[in-house]
């Protein structure tokens, strides 16, 4: 039992962080609004860094790493708010040709209740659907989808589709179960990264912004809001790391409870921190120019991905021993 990052994991964390700072500074992320969230060249840089392939075996061109490392990577992507169907393409690596290499952008959705909301419709090459019977590659030519002019998140353009058809099979039911668990944790990790950077940015702002001749961060009301941001982040991060480790280590027992709890708390940490960050930034938090709203909108989007908080709370309750 040593629940800290290994030095390899620390190095990975550091590397991805620097990659994101170099390739995805905020102005470049913002520029992706105009191209549907994905720029092919940047996407390939992610692939080259191993973001999609890192859990493939070395024989398959991967790094042979586990979910713990994937979670570390996605946390950093979340900090930088890198857009696009990162989780789906990561899951598809090794199963959909070209995904691991960044040649094909893979999107996906869970087949639950209609209508189906397809993210990044104009930039994805492949659309996957997961349901209880397995993984499917949807035949998009037969899809009746409607474009949305005004998406909630400008970096997550969407189509609304009905009667989503199954296409070619890409996996059996067991794969679907595994994908759901892994996807849930990766989204959770991304959300923790968002919660984390929102705390940092809000703290910085509260230290520099003065009102009534004092930095606003010296007012207890603001200070306590910021403290709660840190608290939510640390609690959610512990949950996400633990869930990832549960997926890597079967001897720890069934992972479902840990996975659902992680997504639940990560979603709440990111949405709550984004709302608090808006409040701490005052009027500036209501402007397009300040980044906080981009985080808030993405947090809301991802809170619905791979199950909502309600879904996951239900799941955890059902797994309590009584």
């Amino acid at each position: 039992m040593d629940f800290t990052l290994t030095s390899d994991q620390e190095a990975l964390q550091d590397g991805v962080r620097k990659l994101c700072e170099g390739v995805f500074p905020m102005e470049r992320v913002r520029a992706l609004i105009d191209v549907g969230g994905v720029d092919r060249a940047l996407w390939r840089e992610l692939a080259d860094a191993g973001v999609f392939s890192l859990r493939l075996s070395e024989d398959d061109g991967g790094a042979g790493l586990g979910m713990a490392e994937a979670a570390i990577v996605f946390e950093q992507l979340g900090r930088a708010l890198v857009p696009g169907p990162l989780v789906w393409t990561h899951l598809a690596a090794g199963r959909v040709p070209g995904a691991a290499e960044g040649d094909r952008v893979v999107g996906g959705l869970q087949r639950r209740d209609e209508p189906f909301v397809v993210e990044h419709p104009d930039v994805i090459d492949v659309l996957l659907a997961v349901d209880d019977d397995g993984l499917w590659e949807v035949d998009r030519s037969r899809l009746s989808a409607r474009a949305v002019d005004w998406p909630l998140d400008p970096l997550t353009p969407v189509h609304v589709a009905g009667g989503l058809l199954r296409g070619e099979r890409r996996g059996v039911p067991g794969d679907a179960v595994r994908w759901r668990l892994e996807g849930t944790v990766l989204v959770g990790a991304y959300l923790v990264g968002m919660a984390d950077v929102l705390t940092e940015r809000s703290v910085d702002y509260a230290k520099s912004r003065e009102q009534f001749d004092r930095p606003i961060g010296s007012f207890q009301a603001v200070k306590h809001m910021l403290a709660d941001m840190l608290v939510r982040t640390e609690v959610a991060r512990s949950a996400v790391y633990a869930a990832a480790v549960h997926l890597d280590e079967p001897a720890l027992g069934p992972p479902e409870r840990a996975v659902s709890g992680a997504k639940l708390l990560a979603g709440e940490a990111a949405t709550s921190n984004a709302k608090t960050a808006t409040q701490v930034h005052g009027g500036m938090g209501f402007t397009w120019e300040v980044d906080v709203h981009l985080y808030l909108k993405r947090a809301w989007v991802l809170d619905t991905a791979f199950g909502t908080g309600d879904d996951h709370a239900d799941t955890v309750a059902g797994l309590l021993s009584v």
Partner: protein
Amino acid sequence: MDLLWSESDERFRAELRAWIAEALPKLPPEPKREDWAARRARDTAWQGMLHDAGYAGINWPAEYGGRGASLSEQLVFYEEITKAGAPNVGVSVNFVGMLHAGPTLIAEGNDEQRARHLPAILKGEEVWCQGFSEPAAGSDLASLRTRAVRDGDHYVVNGQKIWTSFAQVADYCELLVRTDPESKHKGITWLILPMDTPGVDVRPLKTVLGSSEFSELYLDDVRIPVANRVGDENDGWRVAMVTFSFERGTSLVPEMVEARHQLDELARLARTVQRGDGTAWDDTGVRREIGHAAAELDALWNLVKRTVSEAARTGVPGVGASVVKLYYSELIQRIGDLALRVLDRASLSIDDVYEGSGHVVEERLRTLALTIAAGTSQIQRNIIGERILGLPR
């Protein structure tokens, strides 16, 4: 304690309702979000129609051309206007003229200023905007730095304002400037700025909604006649605050009427949204939270009635007004969160996925500003703690 409307209130309501039913269809359809000229045209047209029918300036004294309605009639007015979906003064391009600048001129302007502006505001011929906030003066408004220096019979103004609504289509601006750099609250002056004065530069400010109803105002050697000063030099803080006592608890009324409607809409949406074998409405937890929010809105509405009744009796609105602003702005955000939860994946679109769903998502974004503007929730709690409960600073 009486909640029944008086006969005369009911008569007023019936007349108003009949008039709205006739007048509203004459109005052009709502323009696109960013078409400010068209929005000005429509809002001022409606203002003109209100004026001709005798409903303009519902809370303005009759001697200044207003309706001089009782506070209970004002509640009825806002209720009927909002329920009918007619343009609401609170979100009109000239809300500053009707709710702030006009009332300030009534209270503190001179005869000439009143004669020149009040009729034009009431008729919908003149639109005002507000130049109060600055980048470094938000919650701490009195720290504003836009400088006005006397030069003969003019003030020469330099500085920057922010959060100026509808500046693109405004004729005048109520401007707070610093005339004494040595003192804080006591060094501020209230000026009437014609927006076509040279040196005024309006730069639209994009909000989280992607729209630009707000602007930044850059003021570069702007010359404003001393005759445009309202109140004394260095007395502008008091002048600006006078307006607030004018509201007497009614300022959020249209917003709250709208919120009650929106909550009904959310309950309807919850019955529409498919969830497993049933709808979102079948989820006990969600349904109960909607019921809870409805109870809170009902209670706030009754608190408004208490506040307005107290104001009608005593002239001051009592503790209710502070409470309503604080509670409402946090409640409406919670209602918005609940709406996102009900919509689930459909909340990813601000275009309607279900009829009306886009509206509730847009509202969630819009209401982010409510806990910040006009005194953050943190400032409101300070005020309640210190002024009402008497706690030490």
